[in-house]
């Protein structure tokens, strides 16, 4: 439903526009869009009464306690009487509960006033002429769809009946419609003239030559109109309203209003009296509500008087009857059927936002593992997905185990009354523990991990600084023979791949590994793991002399990461990055660089220098040879170039190549011919 605040303001005092938006939302009118003072509102299927300006204004009044002012229903009947000139018969009151009509004679077709055209346009209705606009205006004002016939094109009596199986009607839009017995139509003596509640016929529509107008205001059954729409595939502004519910007791008021506006804008005379066939008048429902029950169901403690007042504001006539509020529901609100419906009205007017948030008895909102524990599980699962087996080691250790791993015990938490020399302090690192595990599994290709704590005294921790730590250990014992001979190598890069996967699981970038030294590690095969400039771990091949202390003779690899620091530094939920569906181009470059230049420096320089089109750069070959010169190596890089929005041309690729070579040259690299 589209409506402007300018129009609503005719019937109720409005709050400022932003506040109005909030009020509409709280009432249950979703604001799909707002453009200045024009709203596009989502009206739920139970609230036909909201498909008009007065219905919305009434609701706003109920929410804000502002008074609702209905437009005056006066009509001056200046013309000769309608009696004897228009007759209406309804075949089945189930299909049509009421049919009222008025005759307006001597109209002059022309445009409607500009302000009317603007209001219609604001509501998304195209202005047509003063007659049609008057019917649409009243439909938007009161929610009652009306239809105007060219009276002079009608022959004899108006009837409301089901169509025959072989009947057809050409509708306003020029389409010939095949009718059927479940479609309700309006006819004159000769022919169908309209599909009830859906669309009028082309033959009898108001045209520029129309002088006398027969105005229809009726109540058609929701199910009948819905069947018609379904059958014909023809929804309209009118059917949208009938399908929900149009107040049968409003037909006459809307008819009078439209007749008067039509006379005002098109200059005709309204005939005396109206035809009003209303075989089964709708009566207001009486529904009662126990305020105590309302409070019980909502979890509130609202006073009965407040509830009664709220229901009154909606236009319900209420009275107290013992412990209940008895409400007479106006016929425009068919959605109110039983107590719970009134309870919802109370909740709506009170404000869903003001209902206190509770949990039923015995429910603990904080039950389950805290985030920290769940993240630990996530790291554990990442390790498992890399094919690692979880190990569990004892936190207690001793001086010599630490010394053997090149670790100081200066800050270790020492025990005062150790029972055994094996357990004199708490470990300050997972290294001794993991070396124990490797030693236990000499000759086996162990791939293990542990998430455990390490402990140190610290001025900032009165007891001890306990850091959750992730350790990974791999052993390069010979693989058992296998006919496929495909055992993956266990080496520094196998460990790096595992650590990289675990870090990426928490959103770490690629470039976190840098050459490093550590007493326990092979001096040329040790890397620090850093995030945002802070070192959070170390990894590499264990120094053979350290391994020898554990009587391990093959190569073993260990990584240790401060898990708390990892979690602190990283993004825990990944944001999806859309990918380009345009073709990618691969370009290879070979550069000669000093042997001690970490390849990552070249990759970074090339990526940065190459610009946004470089989506990845990977080292695909490393070569050292006498022909390159003393202390030099060759690095071959494969660059992937791709644009998010187009296929790359030769000039794009050349441009990137040039920038890539410039960036590499600035780093001291020469391109290898």
């Amino acid at each position, binding site marked *: 439903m589209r409506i402007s605040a300018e129009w609503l303001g005719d019937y109720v005092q409005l709050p400022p526009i932003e506040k109005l938006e909030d009020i509409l939302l709280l009432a249950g009118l979703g604001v799909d869009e707002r453009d200045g003072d024009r709203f596009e509102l989502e009206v739920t299927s139970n609230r036909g009464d909201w498909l008009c300006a007065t219905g919305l204004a009434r609701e706003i009044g109920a929410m804000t306690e502002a008074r609702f002012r209905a437009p005056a229903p006066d009509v001056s009947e200046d013309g000769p009487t309608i009696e004897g000139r228009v007759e209406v018969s309804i075949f089945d009151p189930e299909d049509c509960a009421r049919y009222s009509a008025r005759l307006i004679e001597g109209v002059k077709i022309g445009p409607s006033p500009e302000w009317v055209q603007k209001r219609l346009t604001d509501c998304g209705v195209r202005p047509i002429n003063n007659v049609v606009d008057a019917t649409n205006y009243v439909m938007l004002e009161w929610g009652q769809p009306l239809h105007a016939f060219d009276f002079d094109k009608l022959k004899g009596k108006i009837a409301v009946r089901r169509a025959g199986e072989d009947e057809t009607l050409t509708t306003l839009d020029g389409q010939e419609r095949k009718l059927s017995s479940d479609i309700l139509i309006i006819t004159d003596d000769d022919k169908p003239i309209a599909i009830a509640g859906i669309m009028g016929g082309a033959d009898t529509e108001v045209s520029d030559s129309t002088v006398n107008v027969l105005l229809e205001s009726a109540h058609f059954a929701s199910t009948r109109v819905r069947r018609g729409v379904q059958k014909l595939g023809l929804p309209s502004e009118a059917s949208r309203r009938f399908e929900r519910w149009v107040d049968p007791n409003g037909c006459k008021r809307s008819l009078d209003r439209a007749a008067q506006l039509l006379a005002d804008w098109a200059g005709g005379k309204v005939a005396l009296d109206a035809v009003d066939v209303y075989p089964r008048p709708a009566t207001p429902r009486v529904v009662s509500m126990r305020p105590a029950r309302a409070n019980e*169901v909502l979890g509130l403690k609202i006073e009965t008087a407040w509830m009664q007042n709220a229901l009154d504001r909606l236009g319900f006539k209420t009275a107290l009857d013992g412990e209940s509020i008895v409400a007479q529901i106006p016929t425009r609100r068919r959605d109110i059927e039983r107590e719970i419906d009134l309870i919802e009205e109370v909740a709506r007017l009170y404000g869903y936002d003001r209902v206190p948030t509770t949990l039923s008895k015995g429910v603990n909102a904080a039950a389950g593992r805290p985030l920290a524990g769940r993240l630990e599980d996530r790291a554990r699962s990442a390790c498992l997905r890399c094919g690692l087996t979880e190990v569990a080691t004892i936190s207690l250790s001793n001086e010599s185990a630490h010394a053997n791993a090149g670790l100081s015990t200066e800050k270790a938490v020492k025990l005062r009354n150790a029972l055994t020399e094996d357990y004199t302090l708490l470990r300050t690192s997972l290294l001794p523990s993991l070396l124990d595990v490797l030693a236990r599994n000499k000759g086996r290709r162990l791939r293990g991990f542990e998430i455990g704590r390490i402990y140190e005294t610290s001025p900032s921790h009165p007891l001890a600084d306990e850091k959750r730590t992730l350790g990974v250990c791999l052993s390069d014992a010979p693989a058992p023979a296998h006919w496929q001979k495909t055992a993956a190598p266990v080496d520094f890069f196998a460990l790096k791949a595992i650590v990289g996967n675990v870090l990426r699981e928490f959103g770490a970038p690629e470039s976190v590994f840098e050459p490093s030294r550590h007493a326990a590690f092979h001096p040329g095969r040790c890397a620090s793991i850093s995030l945002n400039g802070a070192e959070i771990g170390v990894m590499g091949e264990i120094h053979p002399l350290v391994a020898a202390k554990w009587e391990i003779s093959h190569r073993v690899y260990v990584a240790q990461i401060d898990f708390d620091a990892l979690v602190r530094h990283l993004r825990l939920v990944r944001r999806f990055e859309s990918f380009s569906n345009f073709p990618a181009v691969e370009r290879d470059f070979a550069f000669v660089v000093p042997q001690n230049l970490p390849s990552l420096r070249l990759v970074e320089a090339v990526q940065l220098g190459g610009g946004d089109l470089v989506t990845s750069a990977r080292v695909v070959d490393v070569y050292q040879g006498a022909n390159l010169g003393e202390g030099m190596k060759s690095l071959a890089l494969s660059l992937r170039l791709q644009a998010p929005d187009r296929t790359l041309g030769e000039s794009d690729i050349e441009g990137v190549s040039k920038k890539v070579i410039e960036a590499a040259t600035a780093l001291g690299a020469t391109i290898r011919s």
Partner: protein
Amino acid sequence: MSDLETRLPQLEAEAMEALSLVKTSAEYETLRVQTLGRTAELTLASRSLGKASPADRPRLGALINEVKRRVESAFETRKNELHKAELDAKLLAEALDVTLPAPDISFGRRHPLTQTLDDIVRIFSNLGFSVVEGPEVENVYYNFDALNIGPDHPARFERDTLYVADDVVLRTETSSVQIRTMENRQPPIKIIAPGRVYRREAIDRTHLAMFNQVEGLCVAPGITFGDLKGTLSTFLSQLFEAAPGAGTVQTRFRPHFFPFTEPSAEFDVFFNGKWLELGGCGLVHPTVLENVGYNPEEVTGFAFGFGIERMAMIKFGIEDLRLFYENDLRFLEQF
């Protein structure tokens, strides 16, 4: 002074001199054999002790031992030095460029929808809900009638719902599972029913013919609208706690209309600067409770439903629903 006494210091000086010139383990080994081996002069010196006069023997013996000990100790030190230097050199030669890329090893991933559903199930389990499942090919009665969706309701039209037969549909909500559960059990009931649902929809960025939904139901004496708000707020703040852009998770409940709940609401979450619609909820309509033989005066309940895809889209910042089912590796590998 015997010859030996003159010779021993010479031998020692020569050995030390030679040792200082040794560069490799191999040279060392040759020298060690020369200096301390079976036929070495120093070794033979002890054997020649028998030829010395008995008076000189103790003195000479002590002297030989002293020289031998000093030479041996110097050799041992040198050996260690050489080993260390050689190990260092070997390790240096083995040095790797640790910044080279690691190989691509297989790293299995769970589908983002499974990850989201796992989170949903975990949170509701902690709040005391159990998980139930039901058929996807469902009777019209369970899908519509029992949920207070009357024969004329547009949702039942062939336009929106996929029919297998007049009275059999592909379920349009997992609410049907709630009815089946309530029919078979007495309150208190606290369940969530996740699963696939089907709609007759044209496929675009935000619509698919099939998606996953979670419906929740809690029926017990004294359940209130406040409990509904509390349960969903708790759930949403836990679901989005670590998502970028969530901040402190704010939720909002707006009145809405559903045939099977009253009062009904839609719930929203404030995310990345705007309110996003998540799903529908409300107190179970007394008619629905009556349909399964419960007395609405004795028990009340709340129900809610939302799409799992929608939650995942918000959490991960995905804008096209179709990505979930295209199974493009470039998508799947991001989660």
